[in-house]
Each structure stands twice: as structure tokens, then as C-alpha cells.
């Protein structure tokens, strides 16, 4: 028997050694869509007001997302992902512009982002994609309308809403659709809060409305999912429509679909009603915050029906995922599953749009389903909603816009991650509309394990404001304020935060 490899062959093979070492890196480069000439489709699915706190994948005791748990085994799961703010307007604007609220300046409810971003946003960053967008949320819809010139197919909000009398009001007052509708709701929806401006007609109106949706109500015993006004909808209809449109439109496409659940009112489907009733879950009791209103009395009930609403989202996400898989679109589509902000049921802080920014209201889920990925991955470093836009641009093969404040997320980033990167969350008010500095604010700075809260300008925070410091790695429930123990760390983070705020406010100082 002769030796299959002689000395000459060995030397030839040895010369290939450097190539062998470099191959994985090289292959990764070829894996980059921009190198393949076939850009991937990108799909952003947003469930509104969905807190990471209530997701078992991130440690929640209730199994609110059995389907997502299973699907996410192949996804990249970001465990410390933060929204730009704590409610729709600033949070969605951050997601769509890739900059923080103190930069895009959509600070108050239903405001548009600064004009500069009308042509600089998620849609403009993907110019070679067919861009399609829809949202159930009126305030998020304000941005889709603002950016409509960059969107190839803008699906009007009403398209996926059920027929209602509210539509008539919106059509009559179409130039002031949001407020007329809010006021109409306050007038007529006596069943939502138990009171309404209208004394008598509201009861008649609710009866008429209930008759219209009698059959659907059997499927939603707590009432139809609504936008808080009359605009009832069912996510099934939206999911079917989205899947159908994605099959029909040209590829590559970039879709942004922002569904309202599990946003209040928490009207889950019959299938999940009372799913967690008497399950024995008991949340940690926390003291009422200085911004808290009332006690924590109703929170167990609210939390339970919110959790049951997440089950509905979970089921519908799985259905969308399966529809995309069946149609073959999943093979070339990156799906980003996330939210615009979280939800709170603790410390007297109800739901969202609250002044105190504890984890439940700002830490949100983020999962990226990358086609071809068979092994899941957990990313524990802190990431921000500002990172979505540059990451999607990168994945779609476009260059990362220079105006975003985010970075390409791991593991996609070709650059090493900054170990002590600062993540910010911003909630701010101005004295007037328009070009004014933020005079009242709730600001968060996260660096490594530390999370600094800074509240200023409120009547609850007279003088220099209130500063809190938590080690969110060892104390994720934020029970032990370290501001007076780790004074140096708190001071360093606070100085840095104030400097950032000054820089952001600079153009707005007279």
C-alpha cells in the first residue's frame, strides 16, 4: 500500500492553510446580502405596548408566548433591548428614524417628527425595496403619513378596521381626525371607563354598536380589540391581509406592520380569556413611586388580562410566520419582532405614558429571525430601538445612514461592539410646541450593568431633580437604589447624561 499523500502534495496542501483559516470569515462576507446581489426582504412586526417583562423568554413566570418561544429557538434574542421612550409617539418615531426622542422631537402625543426626518427614515434607508406599511395605531399612523413619500404602499388605517360609527366622525372631521375621534370616544364610549360625556345617548349608542358586532363579540367576550375609540379590529384580518399583500408585491420588499395589541384595552379572544385565572402567579410587591397614582390594588387583574392579550398576539404572530413559510417568503425574509414601548403594572404606575421609566415600560422584546439560521443566539448586551434602522439597512444590503444614532446590532455588525456603550431612553416635555428645549424630562442612561434614572422639572422633583441608580443585572426589579452608595458612578453617568441633553437641546435654545 502506497502513502496517499507524498511530500509534494503535503506542501501543496499546506499552502492552502491560510485560505482555510480565512475561509469562515470570507464565507461570512459572502453571506452578507450586499455581496450576493439579491437583497433580502425585511419585515418589521411591532406589537404595541409589549413589555419584555411579560415574556417568558426574558424570565417571566407566566407562559404568555408559547409559540414565539418555539419559533425563537432559531432567532437572535436580544435580552436587554430598550425602546426610545415610554409611549407610542416618541417610541415609534425612534424606531422609524433611528434617533432618540431628544433628536427627532416627537415628544408630545400625536406630534410628527422633526421635518428633517420626513426624508430620512426607515423607508428612505431602503430605497431599492418595495416599501409597504400599516398600523392600527393612530399616533403611529401620523408617522406613516409623514413619511408617505418614501413608502410605495401606504395602507390606510381604516383599511383593516371594522365598520363603526367612529369612521363617520373621522370622515366628517378628516382634517382633525385624531382629536375629533378622541372626543367622540369620550362622549360615547360609556362602557369602556364606566362614564362618558353623554348622559343618555351613550347608552343607546353602545347598544347599537354591540348589535353591529354581535357575532364577533362571541369570539371576544371582553369586547373587540379597539384603538380605545370605536375602531374595532381583529388581528386575524390584519395578518391575512398582510400575508396576502406580501405574496403579491414585488421583491425585495420592506414591510412595517404595527399591530395595536397588547395595547389597552386588553380584549383578548375567547380562546385565551381567563387562561391565567387562578394560576397562582404573584408579582413582586413594590413601593408606590413618587409618580405613582393610587395603589397597586387592581394591578393583578390588569396584569392578568394583559398577559392573556399577549397570548392572542403570540398566536397571530405564529400564524403570520406560518403563512410566510408556506408561501416560501421566509427563505429570503428577515423578520424583526419588537415593540414601541412596554407596559407597567407596579409602583402605582399604570400602563404606559407615565413619568417614571422602570424596566417594564421601556425594556421591550427584540427577536430577529434571519433566514437560514438554524441555531438561536442570545445577545445580552444592551441595545436600543435606534439600532433597528441601521441593522435593517445593513441586512438589506444598503449602506447605514449617517444620520442615525444607532449601530448595527450584533451579530451582524462588521465592527466590534463598544463594551461600555451608553443606551438612552428619553421622555420629555416642552413648555410650548415646536422649537423649545426639553424643560421637563425623564431620562435614562444605561451603561453596562448600571441604569441611571434622572427626573427633572416635575412638581414631584423640585430643585435639582431626582436621581436613582440601579444595577439591573444583579437587581433587575430595581429595588435597591444605589445612587447614594455608588456616588461616583451616579455622578459620572449623570454628567454624561446632562451633557447629551444639552447637546440635543442646543439647536432649540433661543
Amino acid at each position, binding site marked *: 500500500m502506497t502513502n496517499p499523500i507524498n511530500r509534494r502534495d503535503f506542501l501543496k496542501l499546506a499552502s492552502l492553510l491560510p485560505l482555510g483559516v480565512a475561509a469562515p470569515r470570507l464565507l461570512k462576507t459572502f453571506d452578507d446580502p450586499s455581496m450576493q446581489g439579491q437583497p433580502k426582504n425585511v419585515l418589521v412586526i411591532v406589537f404595541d405596548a409589549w413589555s419584555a417583562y411579560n415574556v417568558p423568554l426574558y424570565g417571566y413566570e407566566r407562559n404568555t408566548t408559547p409559540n414565539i418561544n418555539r419559533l425563537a429557538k432559531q432567532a437572535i434574542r436580544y435580552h436587554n433591548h430598550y425602546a426610545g421612550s415610554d409611549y407610542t409617539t416618541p417610541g415609534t418615531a425612534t424606531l422609524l428614524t433611528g434617533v432618540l426622542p431628544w433628536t427627532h422631537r416627537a415628544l408630545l*402625543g400625536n406630534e410628527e417628527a422633526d421635518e428633517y426626518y420626513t426624508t430620512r427614515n426607515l423607508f428612505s434607508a431602503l430605497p431599492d425595496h418595495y416599501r409597504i406599511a400599516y398600523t392600527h395605531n393612530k399616533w403611529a399612523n401620523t408617522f406613516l403619513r409623514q413619511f408617505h413619500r418614501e413608502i410605495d404602499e401606504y395602507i390606510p388605517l381604516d383599511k383593516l378596521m371594522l365598520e363603526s360609527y367612529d369612521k363617520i366622525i373621522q370622515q366628517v372631521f378628516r382634517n382633525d381626525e385624531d*382629536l*375629533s375621534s378622541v*372626543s367622540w370616544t369620550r362622549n360615547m364610549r*360609556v362602557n369602556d371607563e364606566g*362614564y362618558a*360625556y353623554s*348622559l343618555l*345617548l351613550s347608552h343607546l349608542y353602545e347598544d347599537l354598536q354591540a348589535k353591529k358586532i354581535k357575532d364577533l363579540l362571541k369570539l371576544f367576550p371582553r369586547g373587540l380589540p379597539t384603538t380605545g375609540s370605536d375602531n374595532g379590529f381583529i388581528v386575524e384580518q390584519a395578518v391575512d391581509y398582510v400575508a396576502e399583500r406580501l405574496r403579491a408585491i414585488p421583491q425585495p420588499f420592506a414591510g412595517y406592520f404595527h399591530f395595536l395589541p397588547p395595547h389597552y384595552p386588553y380584549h383578548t379572544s375567547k380562546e385565551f380569556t381567563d387562561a391565567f385565572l387562578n394560576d397562582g402567579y404573584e408579582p413582586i410587591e413594590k413601593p408606590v413611586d413618587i409618580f405613582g397614582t393610587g395603589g397597586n390594588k387592581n394591578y393583578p387583574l390588569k396584569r392578568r388580562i394583559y398577559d392573556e392579550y399577549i397570548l392572542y398576539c403570540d398566536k397571530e404572530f405564529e400564524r403570520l410566520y406560518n403563512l410566510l413559510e408556506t408561501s416560501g417568503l421566509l427563505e429570503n425574509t428577515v423578520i424583526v419582532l419588537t415593540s414601541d414601548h412596554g407596559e407597567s403594572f407596579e409602583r402605582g404606575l399604570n400602563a404606559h405614558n407615565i413619568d417614571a421609566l422602570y424596566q417594564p415600560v421601556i425594556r421591550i422584546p427584540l427577536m430577529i429571525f434571519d433566514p437560514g439560521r438554524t441555531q438561536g443566539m442570545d445577545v445580552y448586551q444592551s441595545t436600543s430601538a435606534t439600532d433597528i434602522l441601521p441593522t435593517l439597512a445593513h441586512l438589506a444590503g444598503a449602506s447605514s445612514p449617517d444620520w442615525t444614532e444607532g449601530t448595527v446590532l450584533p451579530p451582524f455588525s462588521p465592527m466590534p461592539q463598544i463594551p461600555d456603550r451608553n443606551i438612552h431612553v428619553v421622555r420629555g416635555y416642552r413648555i410650548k410646541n415646536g422649537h423649545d428645549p426639553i424643560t421637563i424630562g425623564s431620562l435614562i442612561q444605561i451603561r453596562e450593568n448600571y441604569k441611571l434614572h434622572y427626573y427633572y422639572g416635575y412638581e414631584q422633583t423640585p430643585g435639582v431633580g431626582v436621581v436613582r441608580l440601579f444595577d439591573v443585572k444583579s437587581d433587575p426589579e430595581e429595588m435597591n437604589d444605589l445612587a447614594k452608595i455608588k456616588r461616583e458612578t451616579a455622578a459620572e453617568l449623570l454628567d454624561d447624561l446632562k451633557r447629551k441633553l444639552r447637546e440635543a437641546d442646543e439647536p432649540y435654545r433661543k
Partner: protein
Amino acid sequence: MKKLFHFAADRYTKQGLWSLFLMSVFPQHLWTLILVFRDMSWIIKRTNVWDAIGNASYAMVYAFFESVMVFCVLVLMGLITPKRWGVNKRIAFLTVLFLTAAIWGMVSQLLYLWTIWLPQSVLQTIAETGRPLFMLYLISLALVGLTVTLPVFTFLVWKKAIPVTLDFMDRISTLSTLYLFLDVVGLVIVVIRNLS
């Protein structure tokens, strides 16, 4: 239509209809204003002062339309009252009926606003009957029936009922006129908002 008009003309005077309309305006607008002011700070905090004013304006416009609808219903109801009644008695009677309904509307909402519930012992007793929903409806019906029957009966047997009611209406009419002025202001603001 002409017949109906003549039929109505026999039962109402212009002054009487105006008084009845002002009474239709009063409770609805009062309640709307109370809740609008309650919502004011909430809206200012989340959006701005202009939106809070806008919300109040829409609310006043909606309240006006509700008042008109209530007025129409009251006028129609008045047509089935005995013909022998004088206009004043008819107007006063309709006012009593409407005020009773409006007070019930307010009370039912105040129960939510002030989070007033039936005492646990009462709930327990109702639950123990074995037909709790039926019992709740029965109690409600008895309560509402009593609160409607009592003022109507008093109105019919008490001689001073008509002058007292008319006097009350007279006092309220000034406030109602102010509310109507606010409706006009609200309408102007709604128009401005929709033009801009």
C-alpha cells in the same frame, strides 16, 4: 305632515318649546363640562392646550346635537300627553321626566367615577338567591320605577308642582343660554381646527 304640525301646535307654544329646549340643554351640558374639565389636565399633559380646548369644543358640539335629539324626543312624548293639559303643565311634566332620567344617567356614571359598589353583604345575599342577575335586574327596576313614579305622582297631585317646576326652569334658562353660547364658541373652534 301638515296635520302633525297642527296637532303639535295645539299642544305647544313657541315660548313653551324654547323653555323645553333650554331644559334639554342644561343637564347634558353641565355633565359634559364637568367631565371635560376633569380631562383637561390629562390632555394638556399628553398633547397640548390647543388640543384640550379642541376636545372641549368637540364635546360642546356633540352635546348640542344630543340636546337637540333629546328635545325632539321630548316634544314627541308631549304629543301623547292628555290634550286637556295646558302648555305649562305639559312642559313642566316633560321637564320632570327628563330631569329624572338625566339624574339617573349621572348617578350611574358617578358610581363608576367614585368607585361605589354594593356592600359585600348585599352582594352575598343576592348571590345566595341562586338567580343573582335576575335579582339585580329586579332591584334595579324597582329602584328606577320608584324614582320615576314618585316625582310623576307628586307632580300630578301636588298643586304647586307646576309653578315650582316653571320657576326652576326659569332660573336654569340663564345657564342654558350660556351653554348655548359656549356651543357656538366650540363650533367656531371646531371649524378653525378643520380648516387649518
